[in-house]
Structure formats: C-alpha cells, structure tokens
C-alpha cells in the first residue's frame, strides 16, 4: 500500500511531466544546456603547485606501484635504488570547485611488529635484517631489499593487563605490502631463528600484521574516509603530459609526510560537489528466457547526473539503439548499432566523470551485463570506466559474509577512483521490507507506484517504431531517476559519508565489507596513541569456536491485556555503558597469575564480573574500548546538541547522519568482541557485558518491587510484568497517566543511583493500553506526554513477513488499532468475524491473498510450491513465466483431497481468468488463525479460538465455479434464477441462448431483483472505470494502452478482477431483457 498519509496537494505528476519540470527549474537556475555540457567545470588556468594549496575531499583510495617522481626524496631511498617501483597510494577526490583530483602518495611503507625475544638488543638487528631479507627474497624475487628497517620500540600488547609495563617490540618495515603475509607466516610457523653466536627464537604471534596497507596509512596519517586533505603549495608536484596515469583534472605527487588531513568538523564537515551518475539499462530479451548477454542486445541506457546537495539532475539523457522520438527535457541519442551505442556511453561516462555511480541492482545486472555484452560484441575499447587510464573494468565474483547479513554471493565491479553504490544491497542491509523490487521500494519510501513493463514487452516496444522506442526510453529514464531520488530521500550519501568519517574507513568499505572493519579501524586509531599494539590472531584462533555464551535473557512476561498505564524504564545505550562503567576491555582483562603477581586488590584494583572474569579498574588502567565508546557517545551528544541549534537543512542532515553513525558504531563494539570468527574476539568481554545486563534487569525489578509498595505509602504495589535486554515494564497499579509518568521518572532516578556511572536508567514512555503477548511480542499505545499518545508501537507481531498474505498484516493491524486506539475490543472481534466471513465468501480482494517468494534457483531438492508453479507457468506461457531472481506471486487454491501443498499454489492472474476457487480455509487456518489467537488470547482468554474462528460467521461459504480443468469439461452449466438460485429448467448457458433472469416463482419480485442487479452492475462498472483510468494516469499517456504489470501495485489484481466482475454483472443484467 502506498504511504499512509500524503499531503493533499502533492501532485501525482507523471514522470514525463517531471522531466519537463526539471528542465524548467534548471534553466531558471541559469545552468548550461544539459545537452551540451557533460564535462566538469574547466580549471581557471594551469594549476601551479608552487603557489597553490590543493584542498580536496578524498572519496576513494587504492594501492599502486610507482617509480619515484623526479626530485622527490623517499625515506629509505638508499635501499630502494635497485628496485625502481615502490608501493604508493592513490587518493581520488574533488575540490570545493568541483574539480577532480588524483593524488599519488609516496614514501609510506608497510610494517609489522614482533615482540623482541629476551636479551635481544639493537646490536642483533643487522643479523635479523639479513636473515629476514634472505627468507623474503625467496618469497618475492623482484624485490632486492625486502626489509627496509627494523627498529626496537617500547610497546604494549593490547591483550590483557600486564601492570602497565611496556616491553620491547621490533617494528619491521618492508619494501612491499605483498611481503607482509609471508613474513607473518614465517613467524607463525616458527621458522625465524637467529643461530650462531647470538641464538634467538621468536614468538609465533605477530602484531598489526593483518591490516591492509591502505588502511594502515590512513590510520597513521589520521585520514578518515571522506575526509578533506590539504597539500600545501610547494610540498607537492603536478603531473603533466605522459606522466599522467589518471583522467583526473589535477594529478599530483606528494610525500606521505606532507599530506595534511582535516578532522571532519566545522568547515571540514562540508561535502564537495560530488557528481552522482544514476543509470539503468534495458535489454531486449527473448520470450521465456532471462536476457543473456551472449545473445540479447542492450537497447537503451538512461542516465541522470546530479551534483551532491542539489535536488535535480543536470544531465538527463538516454542512449538508444535505433531511432527514438524526442523526449522533452531529455537528450535522446540514437545509434544504429549496438557497438556504437556502447562506445558512446562509455565515452559519456568518462566525460561526465562521476564520483559516485549508482543504480538499482547495477552490480549483479547492469554492469555485469554491459561488460559481458561488450566482450561478446568485441567492443574492446568499452570497458574503461575508472579514473586510471588503461585499467580495464571487470566484474568479479564476490562473496559477502557477515554475521549481521548472512552470506551473499554477488558480483562486484570496481571503477578505480569512483564509488559504486548499488542501492539494492544497501536497501537489503538497512531496511526491512516485504519486497525489494524497485517498485516496492519506491512505493514504500516515495509513496508512489512505478509503472512496470514486463521484459517480454520491452522487445516488442524496441521492434516497433520511433514512438514505441520513445515510450521505452521514458520508462528507462524513470528507472534511472528513481535510484537518485531514493538516495536523496534516504540521505544515503550523507549518512554513509558520516559513517566513513566516524569509523575512518573508506566509503567503499561500507558497501563491500562487514561490520568488523569499522571497529578495527577505530581500535587501531585509538591504540596508536597509547603505544598499544594489536595482535594478529589467525581468524578463529583466539577462543574455542564452539564456546557459546548466554545472550540477553528476559524477565518472564506476565502475559495479558493491561488496561492500566505500564511505565517503561530503559537503559540508555546499555551495552556501551556497561563496558564503560565496568572498564571492560582487552587491555583491562587480567588473569589470576597477574593478579597475584601484582598483588591487586579485588574491588579497588579489579572487579570480577558475573561470569567470573576479572577486569582491572580505571585506577589501574583505563580501557581502550571504554575510551572509544566515551568518544563516540560524547561526539553523539555534541552532534545532537548541534543538530538542535542548526537551521541549515543540509548541515542538519549531515549532523543527523553523524549522530546515527555514532550510535551504530557504539553499539557495534560489543558485537565485535563477541564475533568468534572475527579478527579480535574476546568472549570475556562480550559474555561479561550480557551477564551484567541480565543482572541489572533483575536488580531493577527487585529495586522497583521493593520500594513501590503500599507499605511505603505508594498507592499500590508495583509489579514488573516484563523485562527484555535493556528495558523493564512496570505496572505501578495506578491508572492516572500523569501519576504513572511521575512515578516512572522517580523510579528511573532511584534505580540509576544503584548502578555505576554512566549506566543510566531512563523513563521514556508509558504503554497504555498494553497487550503483552509473549517474549518480544507486544503492542501498545505509546505515550510520552499525559495529554496525547504518540503512536502505536508493536514488536514481533506479523506485519512484514513476506510468506504471509497481506491480509494478515491488514487484519492484525486493524485489530490492534481498534483494541488499542479505540479501546473497542468488541469492534475488533466484529471486524475479525466480518473479515473471516468475507474471506470464506470469497469477497476479499485477491491482492490481499497473494504470497510471494523469490525464485532462487531451479534445482531445489524438495518440491516447493513457488518452484513448481514457476514450472507450470513456463509450460503455459514461457514469455510471462517468472525467471530465476524474480519473485513468484501465488495464491493457494482448492485442490483435490490429499493434494500436496506444493500443488496448491497458483498464479493469481490464472486464478482470476479461470475463476479457480481459492482455498479460503487455508488462509483462515494457516495464515490468520495463529496470529489472531495470539493477540486475542490475552483479552478473550481460553475460548478465543471458538469465539473468533468458529461460529455463525464461518457458516456461509461461497466457492467460485471454475471454468477450466477436471470435471468442468463434462459439466453442463445450468443457469440459475437470480432471485432464489433455483436452476432454470431447459436452459443451457453453454449454448449461448438467451436465458431468463428469474424463475416463475420469483417473477413478481422482478423489479426488485432488477434493482439489485442494477446496483451490482453500477458498482462494478464504476470500479472498472476508476481502476483503469488510474492506470492510464499513472502511465502518463491517454492514447496508449496500459502495459504495466507491477504486481506490487495495490490495484494490479483488482483491475484484472474487475474486468471479469463487470462482465458477469452486465451479462446478468441483460438476462432481464428476456424476462419482462
């Protein structure tokens, strides 16, 4: 369903008009003609590195190899003389004026730490250098001097408390990032030894040996993702002519030590005018097959280019195969051959030089398809989209594994120097929706339906003429524009940028990597300042893998329907505050032998957690994780305070994005310590956190129930009816909302005093009334002020699960509204009964009954309903059958007794066309029953099922008479009287002969029956008219038939069904002609 409440006056403009509007506002803004200018604004004149400071926002970076630029003095230069190429980094970015920059950073070398063996002194270093050089030369033969330096330094391991004593670590600097893993392996396998006069064996654990070269540099140079960099004049060199490697407008070389990074605050919180390209392709598939790049041509590519921060695209164009009629407000470029089209598009992308490339499902589809297609057509100069010349763009298989999101197989396409932001995976990660088709996502976030043209029709349109291709182009442009609008609406760029800035990782990491890298980045940054070094555990090394720990438990709910206010007390940022309060960290974890060796006192020097682990207190050593958390939470407080003061909408958005990123980051620290397959798990920390949490919930219950009693002068005895993770629900036994709020506030303050700072119990809201169904399942009206409720809040109640029919969510939602908002339990039960009656009498709209499942692959082992159905549909019509990757929509239909469940799924359209009876019982028993009983049981008690699901309202059952299949071939359909349903003798509907409307007995009632039939026909006719004119309006054309097949649209099935309903109704009306 479209967004709940839309402002009345927002025009439902069709897309073409919108294109025009874009053109309109643009010219008024004084921009240049979009048809003419693709390229970035030109530089004012030649760039002068000697006098001009270069300031740019870096958006992306990669590792490279480079010769030393003439006149630049690299560190360790003497060791590099025989190796012409050295590791370097490339930062790409944009200046405030919108000029693109590529910056080669030289002179930063990778390194790792190893603990120095006992008695190892600086005089042993040359021997170790020789040994390591010998070993590493075999690993990488083209590097003449692998070890550039070994220095001894005083550091501490991040793991465990050792009495604040530093020890000697050896920092081994290497000439090449590829030397790090072999070196680490040599140590881990114990193969590094010094023999002879000085005899040393080395520890097998290395430190900081598992961090990428790029991130290593960004950490050391304090460069966060999306941060502004500054190169002062005369500290860098401009690249010109043949030395240029990239397509950037300004390409420079600089020494690592001369890069100045700005912390993203004040003026440096701004965003550069980044260029965002959003595109969509159409290909002409064959009937019954998903488009194959080896066979099917790319026929159109539509593009929208927007400058970040501006609301509308300034380039709007579409590249078409074959001629195409003009589209107002857009630049149509037609090509006779596909190769020309592809090549032109490639040149377009290079010329408009986007910083961010976005679209919907572009990684797995559009990019991959384009690259494969160009390869098939041998358009060899096509695949160059990055900023580095001569680097071919390729699609690679990627496997994305994350505890939070599960495993996904996908393609990745890297465009050097540009961010590739595919909205589909981003949506899947950040929003829980019923469906992730572009239609569904647009309906949800933009509140509008999108025309959906089936791919079998696309080929027809392509094979038509100028005008049909134009139609397709309008559609394609729309699909290119929608991702851009979603980006804007959801503030994706800003929110992701702030996340990059807060956690320090490059923007692309946020899209392609999991949660851990963000914590690792912060941990390294923090550890650096405390001379801590981080051990490089082998993944899964740190702890026995199967050691599981207890998660957050809950106070057993006292189920029921509460018609009194229930106060909810919440621990603010529970897990982060526990870690801060109890100083839980890698660095404070202390073992029993250390406790006794250092003679630490329990309570003052260290505490024992409920799990039995010991952590030193802040008097001994302040933990690193608590320090990170304090920074994050402090920064969030500042951001929220600034947000309140800020009036500029754009700056507001940045601040809001930042506070959100800070919150997410703070919460992910706990998860990081508990990730057993992670880089640095520490179950002592994570299990202690949850144990503290459980204790605190219990303790809160105890404190509240002891204090708020009649005996202490309170109006009633308080009861904690439920507690979960970080909140406790209290029934104070008082019915006055304002009083409950006062008590809640007081109780929160009172309980907070019993906990260590900064743990804070907050009173946030009152639920009234409150329906507690089970653990993690409840609903209530949410009040923060005594005079007016804020919203209806539900947890864990069936609303978005996609294997449920929409009817379920609708019924449950309506019931909860009636129960909670209207306090009308009777109304709710009446509604349920009506709905069940409607369902059994076949009156519920089909779209409410459609279930959908993605067709992942066709070789499922077990027979699954949607897979079987897809097969059947393919046999009927290969053109319209769902393909792998599509969602299969189906309804459950009646089948013969004993039919397997998978045989009962049927295509909703087929069901409508053939009048196939729906298995309404299935919907009642398997879909509605359980959730209904769940919410009504606390109210109606034991008899819920009999009252609600059985009874008079379930007696009348109307089943559609199928027009196809089985016995119907042999059945003779006899017309029945429209009055009493008695069969009319001597009439056979099948013969097509006119049939009387009523039997002789009903003849006197003819006028009345006629009126009834007229009314039915009027309803159907009006519905037909309204539904089809709506589709006509949505597609934005009056003179062309509606092609849209968007199954996500709420009227898709209705408009199909109404065609049949109206025909039936008017046919019945015509029967009266023969009865008068």
């Amino acid at each position, binding site marked *: *369903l*479209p967004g709940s*409440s*839309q402002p*009345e*006056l927002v*025009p*439902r*403009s*069709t897309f*073409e*008009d919108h*294109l*025009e509007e874009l*053109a*309109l*506002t*643009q010219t008024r803004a004084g921009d240049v003609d979009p048809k003419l200018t693709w390229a970035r604004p030109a530089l004012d004149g030649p760039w002068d590195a000697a006098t001009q400071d270069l300031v740019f926002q870096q958006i992306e970076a990669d590792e490279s190899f480079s010769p030393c630029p003439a006149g630049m003095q690299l560190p360790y230069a003497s060791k590099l003389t025989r190796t012409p190429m050295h590791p370097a980094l490339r930062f790409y970015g944009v200046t405030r004026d919108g000029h693109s920059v590529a910056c080669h950073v030289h002179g930063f070398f990778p390194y790792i730490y190893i603990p120095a063996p006992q008695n190892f002194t600086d005089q042993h270093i040359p021997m170790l250098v020789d040994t390591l050089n010998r070993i590493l030369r075999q690993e990488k033969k083209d590097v003449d001097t692998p070890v550039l330096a070994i220095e001894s330094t005083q550091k501490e391991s991040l793991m465990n408390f050792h009495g604040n004593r530093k020890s000697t670590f050896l920092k081994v600097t290497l000439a090449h990032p590829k030397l790090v893993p072999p070196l680490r392996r040599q140590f881990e396998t114990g193969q590094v030894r010094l023999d002879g006069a000085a005899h040393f064996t080395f520890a097998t654990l290395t430190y900081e040996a598992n961090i990428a070269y790029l991130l290593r540099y960004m950490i050391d140079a304090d460069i966060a993702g999306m941060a502004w960099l500054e190169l002062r004049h005369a500290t860098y060199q401009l690249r010109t002519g043949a030395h240029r490697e990239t397509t950037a407008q300004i390409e420079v070389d600089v020494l690592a030590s001369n890069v100045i990074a700005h912390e993203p605050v004040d003026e440096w919180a701004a965003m550069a005018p980044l260029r965002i390209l959003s595109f969509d392709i159409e290909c002409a598939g064959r009937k019954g097959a998903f488009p194959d790049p080896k066979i099917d041509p790319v026929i159109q590519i539509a593009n929208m280019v927007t400058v970040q921060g501006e609301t509308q695209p300034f380039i709007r164009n579409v590249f078409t195969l074959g001629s195409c*009629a003009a*589209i*107002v*407000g857009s630049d149509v470029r037609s090509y006779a051959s596909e190769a020309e089209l592809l090549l032109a598009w490639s040149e377009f992308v290079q010329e408009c030089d986007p910083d961010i490339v976005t679209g919907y499902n572009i990684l797995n589809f559009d990019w991959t398809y384009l690259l494969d297609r160009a390869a098939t057509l041998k358009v060899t100069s096509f695949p160059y989209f990055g900023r580095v010349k001569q680097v071919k763009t390729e699609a690679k298989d990627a496997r994305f594994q994350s505890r939070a999101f599960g495993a996904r197989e996908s393609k990745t396409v890297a465009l050097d120097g540009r961010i590739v932001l595919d909205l589909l995976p981003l949506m899947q990660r950040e929003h829980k929706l019923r469906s992730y088709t572009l239609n569904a996502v647009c309906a949800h976030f933009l509140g509008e*339906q999108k025309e959906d043209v089936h791919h079998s029709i696309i080929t027809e349109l392509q094979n038509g003429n100028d*005008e049909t291709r*134009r139609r397709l182009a309008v559609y394609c442009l729309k699909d290119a524009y929608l991702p851009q609008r979603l980006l804007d609406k959801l503030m994706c760029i800003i929110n992701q940028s702030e996340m990059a800035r807060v956690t320090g990782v490059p923007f692309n990491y946020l899209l392609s990597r999991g949660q851990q890298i963000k914590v690792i980045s912060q941990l390294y940054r923090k550890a650096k300042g405390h001379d801590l070094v981080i051990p490089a555990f082998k993944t899964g090394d740190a702890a026995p893998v199967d050691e599981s720990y207890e998660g957050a438990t809950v106070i057993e709910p006292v189920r029921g329907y509460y018609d009194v206010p229930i106060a909810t007390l919440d621990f603010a940022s529970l897990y982060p505050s526990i870690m801060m309060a109890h100083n839980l960290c890698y660095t404070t974890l202390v073992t029993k032998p250390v406790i006794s060796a250092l003679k630490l006192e329990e309570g003052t020097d260290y505490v024992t957690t409920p799990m039995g682990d010991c952590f030193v207190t802040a008097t001994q050593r302040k933990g690193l994780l608590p320090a990170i958390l304090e920074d994050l939470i402090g920064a969030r407080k500042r951001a929220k305070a600034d947000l309140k003061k800020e009036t500029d909408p754009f700056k507001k958005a940045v601040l809001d994005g930042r506070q959100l990123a800070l919150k997410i980051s703070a919460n992910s620290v706990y998860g990081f310590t508990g990730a057993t397959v992670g880089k640095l798990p520490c179950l002592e920390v994570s299990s202690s956190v949850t144990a503290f949490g459980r204790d605190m919930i219990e303790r809160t219950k105890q404190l509240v129930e002891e204090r708020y009693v009649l005996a202490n002068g309170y109006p009633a005895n308080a009861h904690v009816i439920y507690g979960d993770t970080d909140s406790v629900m209290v029934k104070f036994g008082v019915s006055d909302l304002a009083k409950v709020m006062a008590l809640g506030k007081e109780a929160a303050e009172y309980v907070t005093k019993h906990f260590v700072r900064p743990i804070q119990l907050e009173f946030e809201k009152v639920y009234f009334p409150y329906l507690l169904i089970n653990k993690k399942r409840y609903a209530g009206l949410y009040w923060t002020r005594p005079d007016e409720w804020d919203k209806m809040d539900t947890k864990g109640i069936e609303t978005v699960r996609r294997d449920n029919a929409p009817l379920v969510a609708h019924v449950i939602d*309506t019931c909860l*509204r009636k129960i909670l908002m209207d306090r009308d339990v009777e109304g709710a039960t009446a509604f349920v009964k009506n709905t069940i009656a409607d369902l059994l009498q076949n009156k519920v709209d089909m779209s*409410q009954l459609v279930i959908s499942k993605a067709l992942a692959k066709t070789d499922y082992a077990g027979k699954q309903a949607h897979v079987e159905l897809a097969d059947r549909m393919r046999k009927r019509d290969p053109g319209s059958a769902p393909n792998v990757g599509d969602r299969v929509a189906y309804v459950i239909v009646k089948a013969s007794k004993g039919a397997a469940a998978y045989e009962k799924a049927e295509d909703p359209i087929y069901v409508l066309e053939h009048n196939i009876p729906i298995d309404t019982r299935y919907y009642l028993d398997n879909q509605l029953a359980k959730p209904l009983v769940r919410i009504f049981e606390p109210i109606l008690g034991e008899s819920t099922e009999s009252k609600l699901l059985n009874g008079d309202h379930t007696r009348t059952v109307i089943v559609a008479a199928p027009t196809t299949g089985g016995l119907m071939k042999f059945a003779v359909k006899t017309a029945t009287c429209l009055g009493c349903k008695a069969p009319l003798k001597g009439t056979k509907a099948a013969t097509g002969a006119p049939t009387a409307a009523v039997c002789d007995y009903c003849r006197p009632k003819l*006028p*009345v029956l*006629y*009126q009834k039939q*007229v*009314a039915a*026909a*009027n309803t159907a*006719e*009006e519905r*037909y*008219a*309204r*539904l*089809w*004119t*709506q589709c*006509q*309006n949505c597609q934005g054309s*009056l*003179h*062309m*038939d*509606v092609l849209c097949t968007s199954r996500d649209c*709420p*009227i898709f099935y209705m408009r199909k069904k*109404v*065609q049949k309903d109206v*025909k039936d109704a*008017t046919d019945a009306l015509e029967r*009266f*002609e023969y009865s008068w």
Partner: protein
Amino acid sequence: MTAPSTQLHHRADAASQPQTRTIANLDLTASAPFLLKDRTYTQQYANLYFSRLQKLRPHVVAAANHKWGSVMERGTVRHVERVVDIRPKSTVWIVGTLFCEMPLKPNILDDIASEYGSALPPPHREKIYSEKDVVMLEDEYGRVRLEGPLLTDYSVVTGTVAAVLGSENAQGGFDVLDLCYAGLPPLASPGLESDDGPWVGFVSGFRFGVADADLLAAQMLSDYVAGELGCDEDLDLLHRVGRIFVVGNVIEAEHVEQGLPEADAYLAQMAATVPVTVLPGPVDPATHVLPQQPMHPSLFAQASKHSEFLSVPNPLFAQCAGFPIAVTSGQPLDDLFKYVPGDDRLALARRMLDWRHIAPSAPDTLWCYPYVDDDPFVLPERPRLLVVGNQPEFATCIYEDLTNTDTADPDAMDTDDTPPSPSSVRVLLLPEFTRAKLLVLVNLATLAIRTIHFG
C-alpha cells in the same frame, strides 16, 4: 431571459373541446451507439481517447486553419503534425487531447489505502481544480506541458481535443498564445423560419419516491399539458406541444418501491395526452455509467401501454420533428463544473458546443463504457437545442458559432435580444422540478422559449 410564468386557472371546458395535437416525431438513429449490446471489458480506455482524437482532429485542423489562416499566410506560424516535432524558437500550432493533471482529482489508490486502514478516507470535493493543476496536450506520440495565462481564460478541461498555438519555451513547456476547438459542424438542413414550428416541453427531476417530491405541482403540470389548466392562449400553444421530455431523475433509486408505482401512474396519465420521452438520470434506478441505458419499459407497466411513451438512453442525440437535438440528464456538466473556478454553468454548456463534444471528461473523471473504436459522445451534427437536465437553476442562451468568427464577443450571444439565425443553437439548463417547479417549452423552429411555473 426568462419568459414570465403564465397565470394558471382551471379550465372547465377542457374536456368538451377536443383538438388535435401535432405529434413531434422522434428519430433515435443518432443514439444507436448509446444502446450497448454484447458489452466487453477486456479493452482499456486508450481506444476511446484514440477514437476521439481521430474523429475530431480533422475538424479542429479545419477550424484552426480558418482561425489562424491569416497569420499562417504571413509565414509566422505553421502547423506541426506531432507533439514530438515541436522545436524551440518557432511559433507553431498542434492538435491533441488536453489533459489536466490535478492533485485534487480523486484517486482510487487513496481510497484503497483508507479501505485498508492506513489513511483517512479522501474528502469528497465540490471542485477539484487548484493552483497546482498542470495542463498537458497529448497526441498519439507524446505530451507537452502547456503554460500561459490563457489557459485559465479557456477553462480547460480534460479530454477535449484542441489546437494550441504557441511556442516551446526555454523550459521545454509550450507557451500558449491561442487555442482553438473544433466548433460545431455546419448546418445540415436549415430550420424553419416560421412561427408555427413544433414545440416540445422539457422537465427534469421529479424524484418520485422522496418525501419532498411535490406531487401536487407535478399533477398541475400534467393537467396543464393535458390542457385542463390555463387560458385560451395556453391552449393554442399546448396543442402545438408535440412531445414532453422527462430529462432524468424521475425516481429516487433509494425509494424505488414507493417511487416506481407513483412515477408509472403519473407518466401513464401524461402519456395519455402527449407523447412522453424519459431519460434516466444520476439518481434513477438505472445503470449509472454513461451512456445510461434506457430504463426498462417494463418498469413502467402502465405508461408503457401508451404507444407514445418512450424510454431512451442518456445522453440522447435525436431528430425531433426533423430538428436535431442533444439532451443529457446533467452528469457531464456536473463533472465539468469540478474542473473550473466559478459557477457559470451556462458558459460550460456553451463550451460543449465549441468542443463538439458533450462529455469530454469521460472517462477520466466521468465514468463511461470503454468504447473500442468509436467515441459516441462527439456531437454528430449541429443540434438545434442542447438541453442539460437536473441543474441547480434555470438558464438559457442562444449560441452562435464562435469558433469560425473570431470577431464575435461571446457575451453578446447571451441574450435573447439577438434574433436567432438558422444555425443558432438554444442552450437550456433545466432545473430540477422538485426545486424550481418549472416546465420549459421550446419552439424548435424559432427557438422561442416559454417557461411555466407550477406551485
């Protein structure tokens, strides 16, 4: 504008002096497409728009050539065949279907959202125009956004076919300088220029069945038509009334059980003295989507016994005593009324004649049958009379063809002072009888008009 109501008094001698009445014959050939047989609903509405454009385009082109001929001769303006061929910086005219995009237009998606509980039901609106309306011109090949102050002057309505003259502006919109509709077809056969032409009567909105249906006034009307009321002059006139049209809203469908027998008895009584033709209207117990099918004669068991009782569709195109007439029960005008500010219904009715179309907002906001290869609502010929039933107030004017005479001042045509020419059209807005108690008599030859008030 209105003729003074005739003073009524009972005639005792009415029955004793039988006179012959001239019957106005009714030829329904032109309404044939309104009688639906073998309805199908697998088609969509695009066909209807397509047919409308095909049908009206040549006429609009002719009208535009006439109107803008002089500027075209000077070479400053040219005709462009397709919307997509408009190029910036040249003044052109194009023909297409107008479409108003209106944020307040009822949207079924909103209704469904409220049906399923997620939104408030959309309010019912008297008017749907707003400042955010956008007008588009569309042909088979594309659409262009129209701009310019002229649009408001023209009270532009969805579904009309027009030629617009102007140029593409820098923003890709089309600045309209002038606009031209098809106008009426030329006169097929000249009307009689004599005083003894046939008279016909029009009444609408009896609403039998509702409590405030004025049965007494209705009875007076029937008696009057029968010649049992009024003076001798009246009688002379009444003998020349060849047909009474009951233009919709005869019976309240909600009270059909009471209303139907009342209506039947009443119409039977009237049909005994004068031919009666009944159209269904928006409240009648009939199909509601246009064209409304004739109410079944069997519903009127008594009245149907009279051979001169006729149930016809709404709208109705017919030849009455050889004069073409167009009659609707009011829905098209009521729907158009939502599109424009102000409440000049007569002006809108005149517009129908400019457009050569009596229901342009069908199917967009006025529900109608999805015709496949025809648009029957296009006026087939120049009518002598356009009657719109069930309007709030009585109003009438003489319409002269404006589209082809660009010097004419539209307001000058409003009065009866101008003697009607053979090609004039009488436009008649008929009030509901329950409200105004009015019978309107029109002389089809001279377009003279008499109103008789009962009550």
